[in-house]
């Protein structure tokens, strides 16, 4: 046992996690244990693995929670001696889930979550303002799901993902002497989830899940140029200085393997492996209707920005100790890897390698549970070496999360 724990801890230091604009905050209890997945205690398991809802101990389960994210990114350029720190508002991802066991073999559920998003606001005079001044990305996942118990110890579940999202991105257009805002809050996408959940003994939970990629299509985007009106005719803008644009933002797929083992009736440990397909995000294309602000020789209205993300892996370890029958104490650790190299650092999605320590407590009374959790990110400063944008310097970040979750299990 000792060997397993030590080995897991070591691996956690070497391997990595999602990063990018994936916000891995879909369960307060789970976060306290490094956001591991094999916890079929309430309906929140549905987001992690639809098959997990079959093993919720009660007929009906409802869970909901919310988080606060405080994150600040600092950038400095030793060449110009400039330094800037973001003025980010607090991020507030939320989730809600319900699961119901129709018969012992068949459970249905619904999960609502905000698994992707990013809000970054830099000072308006900052060095990278041509890339981003302010960006707000959001994606809401609505997932109806069903799970079948194939045997008393194994279930198979699936979900349909309907995603709705928004983008609101402001940057300067220095050569036009103004700013550009692109906005679409009508972006949608579709996907699915699939998983197996095993419970071969009372001591062991094993969760295997896949969540498909989702292409968020923004078809009704509005590009608003805040520039001299004398430029409107040259840019093909309407009387309000606006143009239309189309874009597709890929939300990536994720494979998860999770295990929870009860060492004693009171003490359990969990481990997770995730693989996130960030290599889908190779470039971002903004296709304007009229404005020739692109960079393609054959199509001056098409702006293609290379992103060159690579896929990431992550390992997580968490543990829970029942101090009393009602009161749980939890701890966790995971290592988070950025999905891009220093050469591809982009300040609209600042991402760092990070060690994350998590913790939390929970109190159960009859079917009602209340959980608190928190996490602190120790993010490794990095070099910014983006030759494509001629954007150089160093970046660092600090971030912490806290969450409050409620769950209710009945019958």
């Amino acid at each position, binding site marked *: 046992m000792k060997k397993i724990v030590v080995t897991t*801890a070591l691996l956690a230091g070497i391997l990595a996690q999602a990063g990018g604009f994936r916000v891995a905050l879909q369960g307060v209890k789970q976060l306290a244990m490094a956001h591991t997945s094999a916890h079929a205690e309430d309906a929140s398991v549905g987001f992690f693995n639809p098959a997990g809802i079959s093993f919720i101990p009660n007929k009906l389960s409802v869970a909901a929670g919310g988080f606060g994210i405080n994150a600040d990114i600092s950038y400095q350029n030793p060449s110009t001696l400039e330094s800037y720190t973001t003025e980010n508002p607090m991020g507030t991802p939320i989730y809600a889930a319900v699961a119901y066991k129709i018969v012992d073999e068949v459970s249905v559920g619904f999960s609502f979550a905000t698994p992707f998003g990013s809000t970054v606001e830099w000072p308006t005079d900052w060095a990278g303002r041509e890339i981003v001044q302010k960006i707000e990305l959001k994606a809401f996942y609505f997932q109806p799901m069903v799970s079948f118990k194939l045997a008393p110890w194994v279930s198979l579940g699936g979900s349909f993902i309907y995603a709705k999202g928004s983008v609101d991105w402001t940057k300067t257009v220095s050569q036009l*002497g103004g700013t550009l805002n692109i906005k679409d809050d009508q972006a949608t996408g579709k996907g699915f989830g699939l998983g197996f959940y095993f419970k071969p003994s009372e001591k062991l939970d094993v969760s295997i899940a896949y969540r498909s990629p989702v292409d968020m299509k923004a078809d009704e985007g509005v590009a608003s140029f805040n520039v001299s009106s004398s430029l409107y005719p040259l840019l093909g803008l309407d009387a309000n200085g606006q143009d239309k644009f189309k874009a597709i933002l890929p939300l990536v797929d994720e494979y998860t393997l999770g295990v929870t083992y009860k060492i004693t009736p009171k003490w359990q440990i969990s481990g997770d492996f995730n693989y996130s397909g960030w290599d889908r995000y190779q470039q971002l294309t903004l296709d304007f209707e009229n404005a020739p602000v692109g960079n393609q020789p054959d199509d001056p209205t098409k702006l293609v920005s290379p992103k060159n993300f690579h896929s990431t892996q992550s390992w997580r370890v968490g543990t829970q100790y029942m101090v009393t029958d009602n009161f749980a104490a939890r701890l966790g650790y995971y290592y988070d890897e950025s999905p891009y190299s220093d050469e591809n650092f982009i300040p609209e999605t600042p991402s760092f*390698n990070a060690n994350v320590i998590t913790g939390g407590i929970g109190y159960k009374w009859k079917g009602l549970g209340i959980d608190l959790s928190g996490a602190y990110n120790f993010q*490794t400063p990095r070099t910014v070496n983006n030759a494509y*944008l001629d954007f150089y310097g160093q970046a660092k970040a600090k971030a912490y999360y806290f969450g409050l979750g409620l769950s209710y299990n009945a019958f």
Partner: protein
Amino acid sequence: MKRILISTIAVSALLFNISCDTDFDQDVSSIVVSKGDADFTKYVALGNSLTSGYRDNALYIDGQNESYPSMIAQQMQLAGGGAFKQPMMPNNTGGFTNLPGFAGKLNLQVVNGALSPVPSAPAAALDNVTPGGPYQNLGVPGAKSFHLGAAGYGNMAGLATGQANPYYVRFATSGTSSVIGDAVAQAPTFFSLWIGNNDVLSYATSGGTGVDQTGNTNPATYGSNDITDPNVFASVISGYVNALTANGAKGVMANIPNVTSIPFFTRVPYNPLTPALLGSNITALNSGLYGPLKQALTAFGAGDRINLLSATSANPLLIVDNSLTNLSAQLTLALTPSLGVQTATAFGQIYGQARQATSEDLVLLSTSSVIGTPVTGAPASINLNGISYPLANQYILTKTEKNKVLTATAAYNASLKAIATSKGLAFVDANAKMIELSKASGIQFDGVKYTATFVTGGTFSLDGVHLTGRGYALIANEFIKAINTTYKSTLPMVNVNSYSGVKFP
């Protein structure tokens, strides 16, 4: 159980120590800027319009505040640099009301639905700011290499004869002082010297109407649009550098960009006569003018001077090239049978040295307003500038003229490099930077792409010759890099995007 817990905690703690340093190795606020081997206490900048902050065809306050020497001086102040005073103009328009040929700055305005640079009226009479001196920015718009050493270049009385320059008159310490003398009198510890552009530029912007004075070592005999003799150039600059370095001052020099990299010469194509522009006139032009001319010229072995106009692709301008053999008499003779003596004589005079432009000729930016306009006094059927009437010498820098400019520039640049090297001075290859800028890929800075394209490139001001604040900032960074490399100083770069570009109305 306890042991497992303890070892888990121990391993976690170990991992933490390895990778949990969340701060920068060094915060930029704690970086000490070093002057290296240089001493920036008294920095003086010598040069021409580029040094003064001239842009949009005028010297005005906003431009002066974004001159490259003032940017450099600001960075030097982080490493012991002293105050840097510039002879500020009294207004933000520029020009001199009491002197002909000194208009106010160009402004971009909507003219007939299109954005065009429009000159403004000069805002004030020539002022004098000498009492506010001495000034550390000694850049004098219009100055050529040999002007910096000319005593009396700032004498009001010399303005009428062209021996003085109003921009130097403003701040010259006396009627007999020279720019270099005023600089040396301040006992500078550091200097920048970027001079020589006008030694070729005035020839080039005048369409090569001046004389290439290579071989004539007496600049007193030069006209204002002449090319300076490279030996004169080398000797005066060598003299300046000797004077400036006599007390051990360090400095930085820069070479001269080729005219082929600046929009004043690249904006207007050699072949702007599109079929759409010429319309139905093409047939008439070919049968009445281009055809007969080509036929006659071919007979004299010069048929390649003119080709028939194409109805499908863009056509070159018709220009005068003084380097061509004058075939006036021959043309008149050949055309007399078909056109009659009178018309044939006129044709002969007009087209004797005419040819169509090629991609090797440079059309001046100012010529764009002349193309297609009627020439007064010319016969009505052949009076359209560049279309039926050859553009006069002053509108085009022909291949021959361009090559004279490039040859002189190369000679100047070789001397500048040799002088800088011999004195161990920092050296800026401004020519290379401008060539880089004039390529399609341009130069990026923090996500903004700059090119040498007129207006939209962001680096050249509305006169097509001088830079914008952002263009000057690109140059300032080249100076700073060269200074840092040579003197092991660590002056920070300036943020190019923070300065002003072209202003839209």
